[in-house]
């Protein structure tokens, strides 16, 4: 940071901002928040869901319901936004403040072309003629690193990928060259490789146009990459504020320490390893006037913590923390590591065996599949149904007690694979064997036995439980269905199951909407456990959860695995979470397994270019340059699925010949024509594939 930036008048000066829903102070979503944002600076606001971080953006952007009471001042370029008339305020928003939100999939109007949506603010705020604005829109798209910008400008939103849409939205937000850009979780809905691209784009825009960023996120890693200063928010208050370096490297507040500690590290973990988690959950109606609101979850708490409100005090110059003992707090406690290196399973002794599995979905059939073409001057009508292979020639196995991680970006077919393994979908070709029996031939009582032994835990905490069934009813159902407990024993068994997932037995009578996300996921796990399964497909079980809760659920899954010898197929897009829990990890791209190995092998010496790209995206390494593929990545039916994006691609080979799964060590295999070594980026085409 240079001094001139610090001494310039602030661009945004928020003073004692309080946002109340429903009039009571108890329902304040934001409480007495003050911060400065200087021109060209990037401030990150980090917090878990419900901490009030989005309400700050809402207050600045005037997005909140009119019934919401906003106190305090929001000085932007010296003017208090809260006192401006609606009309004046609208002139500031869009013109002087740009904004980008989490969900690029719904933020664009599906009925308007992209170019028009970017040109709209230019016409409206700058009074530029429409055709001139349309030209500028194309330039802006080009600046956002979009190839073939003119084509994209003429496209409708549904024709673009999520990353493309978010680029278009950033282009629209920057259209009037505003000095301030407010971003609310702009990359949360995107894949990690796309996220890395968007972050690089934002960093570049910031540098070139000297835009200030107010960046709201739950992800500490992203804030670290992009911001100069960071505020940590907990239960409606800032608990820590300082430079990125001081807050993330020398955090003073126990909550910040806990958040940082509960992030799974990107490295292979021993079986006995557990993540340090923050116990309990954030209070929904905090009362910070009488005590520190973090006390119930704080391992450093003592009597004095509940003897009055905590104030933000300087831990070091320019670094504020809301904790009276900030200077005495040590490291967040880590849980003991038991030395279990190897699971109780024997490789080769498979519980689930998937062989050459293939599942296709028809993308076009019925009337839509008729195509009109003109051949030799004659129109011809042909029936051309098209199919998409969601899972394509996949073979893998899971041993009893083993955790197989499955990583890939959205749409790669990992969830389909999980559902095929449970016979929730029927495969097009190939076979799934469970305990030696081919599932496609299982029926009647054998099928019931299989259903009992193989269960599933889902990602979507909003819909994994029936909103009309109480927790007790939901967990009791499998007991009744499979006759696992006599009617009078069921209640006791339900309480045992709740205890297994660390929930009090009183939760039996609760309904899903009365539970937090983490609690719902625990109930869903208890419901799966109720059948006493041997194999559980965990489909992104922690993706929808906050970091501190995520750590607790990952630990719970690890505990249950060790206690009952469960085998998991653990599906996630997050390599760090997968590495934490898995014995082996499979990386999936467009329906195929491109690399499989132990977490240590995969993280230390990834052999497939796609694995490398995934790792680089989360490690903040310079990403390997992708081949420019425009806005549609087509898979060639013949060659390597990744060829279109691969920096190492040799078109004559990769586009025509499918890469074989090459054995690197006994447990490590990769599907690539090249032997990419761990040290160098230079590759040697293997002789065998060229000959074939």
């Amino acid at each position, binding site marked *: 940071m240079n001094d001139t930036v610090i001494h310039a008048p602030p661009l945004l000066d928020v003073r004692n901002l309080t946002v109340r829903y429903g009039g009571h102070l108890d*329902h304040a979503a934001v409480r007495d928040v003050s911060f400065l944002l200087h021109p060209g600076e990037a401030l990150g606001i980090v917090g878990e869901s419900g901490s009030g971080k989005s309400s700050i953006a809402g207050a600045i952007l005037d997005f909140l319901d009119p019934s919401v009471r906003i106190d305090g001042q929001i000085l932007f370029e010296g003017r208090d936004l809260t006192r401006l008339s609606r009309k004046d305020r609208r002139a500031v928003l869009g013109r002087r403040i740009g904004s980008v939100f989490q969900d690029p999939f719904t933020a664009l109007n599906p009925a308007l072309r992209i170019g028009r949506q970017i040109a709209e603010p230019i016409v409206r705020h700058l009074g530029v003629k429409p055709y001139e604005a349309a030209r500028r829109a194309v330039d802006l798209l080009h600046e956002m690193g979009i190839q073939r910008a003119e084509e994209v400008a003429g496209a409708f939103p549904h024709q673009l990928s999520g990353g493309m849409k978010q680029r278009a939205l950033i282009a629209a937000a920057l259209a009037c060259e505003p000095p301030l850009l407010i971003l609310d979780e702009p990359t949360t809905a995107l894949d990690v490789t796309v996220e890395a691209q968007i972050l690089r784009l934002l960093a570049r825009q910031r540098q070139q146009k000297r835009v200030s960023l107010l960046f709201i996120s739950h992800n500490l890693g992203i804030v670290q990459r992009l911001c100069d200063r960071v505020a940590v928010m907990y239960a409606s208050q800032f608990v820590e504020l300082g430079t990125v370096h001081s807050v993330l490297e020398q955090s003073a507040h126990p909550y910040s320490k806990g958040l940082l500690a509960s992030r799974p590290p990107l490295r292979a973990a021993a079986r006995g390893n557990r993540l340090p988690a923050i116990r309990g959950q954030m209070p*929904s109606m905090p009362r910070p006037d009488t005590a520190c609101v973090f006390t119930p979850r704080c391992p450093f708490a003592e009597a004095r913590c509940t003897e009055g409100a905590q104030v933000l005090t300087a831990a070091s110059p320019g670094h504020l923390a809301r904790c009276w003992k900030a200077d005495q707090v040590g490291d967040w406690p880590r849980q003991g590591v038991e030395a279990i290196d190897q699971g109780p399973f024997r490789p080769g002794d498979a519980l689930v065996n998937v062989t050459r599995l293939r599942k296709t979905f028809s993308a076009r059939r019925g009337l839509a599949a008729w195509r009109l073409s003109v051949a030799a001057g004659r129109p011809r009508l042909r029936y051309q149904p098209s199919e998409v292979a969601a899972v394509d020639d996949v073979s893998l196995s899971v041993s009893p007690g083993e955790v197989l991680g499955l990583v890939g970006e959205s749409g790669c077919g990992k969830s389909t694979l999980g559902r095929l393994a449970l016979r929730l979908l029927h495969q097009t070709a190939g076979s799934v064997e469970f305990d030696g029996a081919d599932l496609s031939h299982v029926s009647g009582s054998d099928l019931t036995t299989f259903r009992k032994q193989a269960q599933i835990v889902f990602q979507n905490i909003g819909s*994994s439980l029936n909103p009309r069934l109480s927790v007790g009813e939901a967990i009791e159902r499998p007991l009744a269905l499979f006759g696992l407990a006599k009617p009078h024993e069921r209640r006791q068994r339900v309480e045992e199951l709740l205890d297994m997932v660390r929930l009090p037995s009183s939760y039996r009578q609760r309904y899903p909407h009365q539970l937090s996300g983490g609690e719902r996921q625990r109930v869903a796990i208890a419901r799966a456990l109720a059948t006493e399964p041997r194999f559980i497909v965990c489909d992104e079980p922690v993706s929808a959860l906050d970091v501190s809760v995520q750590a607790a659920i990952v630990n719970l899954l690890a505990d249950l695995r060790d206690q009952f010898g469960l085998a998991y197929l653990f599906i996630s897009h997050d390599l760090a979470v997968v590495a934490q829990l898995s014995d082996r990890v499979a990386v999936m791209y467009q329906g195929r397994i491109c690399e499989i190995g132990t977490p240590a092998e995969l993280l230390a010496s990834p052999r497939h270019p796609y694995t490398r790209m995934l790792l680089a995206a989360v490690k903040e390494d310079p990403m390997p340059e992708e081949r420019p593929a425009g806005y549609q990545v087509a898979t060639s039916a013949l060659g390597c699925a990744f060829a279109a994006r691969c920096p190492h691609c040799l078109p004559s080979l990769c586009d025509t010949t499918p890469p074989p799964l090459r054995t690197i060590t006994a447990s490590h295999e990769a599907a690539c024509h090249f032997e990419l070594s761990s040290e160098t980026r230079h590759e040697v085409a293997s002789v065998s594939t060229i000959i074939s």
Partner: protein
Amino acid sequence: MAARLTDAVALDVVAARRSPLPRALIIGATIVLVLLIAAALAKVIAPYPFDQMHIRDRLSPPSLHYLAGTDEYGRDVFSRLLIGSQLSLLLGVIATLISMGIGVPLGLLAGYRRGLTDEVIMRALDIMMAFPPIMLVLLILAVTQPSLVKTAFAIGVLSAPPIGRVTRSVTLDLMSGEFMEAARARGERLHYVLRRELLPNVWPLLMVEASLRVVFAVLLGAVLSFLGFGVQPPAADWGLMISDGRAFVDKAPWISLAPGIAMSITVIGISLLGDGLREVLDPRMDGRR
């Protein structure tokens, strides 16, 4: 642009204002309750027998003697209104029960099974919807002797397709829920899934639809009586009363107006009740139980 709230905050906001019942529910329930009591106690409340003629007071305007005036035979309109409400409400309720009995299971099945089952059920319902309802009811009633049960049945069958459609669309929505997939992963039987997993979630919206159907049945019943195919004179019925009053609209508008107003109040009351019930029943719309 709508307020962007995080889940936790939104829950708290709802919790804060959960205590009072929705105003629609209170007003609607009051109106319906008063109507039901009035209908049940019609014989007691009514100042005169519904068919008693007061020849000297023919076509007299509303007064303290005759609260809603008298008709061309000198019968007390208010008493006839009360007695008539019995038939109208009974018709509405029976017809709606019949239509739900047919429409809900079909809608659940179509939405859950999809594919061929869905096509067959929905196309069959479409064909039924394609008939002009009055024509069909008239046809049924014209070839047989009119009776309340038959009228109710005809209207009920006619109202089944819209109920089926609503049920199916809600079911389709629920099918994407992961709890449905969890049920399949347990190998649940059709009966359990429809009754325990789906039906309770369909109820809130069905309440609204059912209230609309009651209204529809009451109105259609009145139309039939008006056309002379429903309740036969000298019985008292709102539709019949409007029909009878037609000839005297210029001299004695109260004969037609009074049942018209009664019908409007009934319609409004039931609709408000349905709306209010949905708000209370939907677990996502209240804070805590």
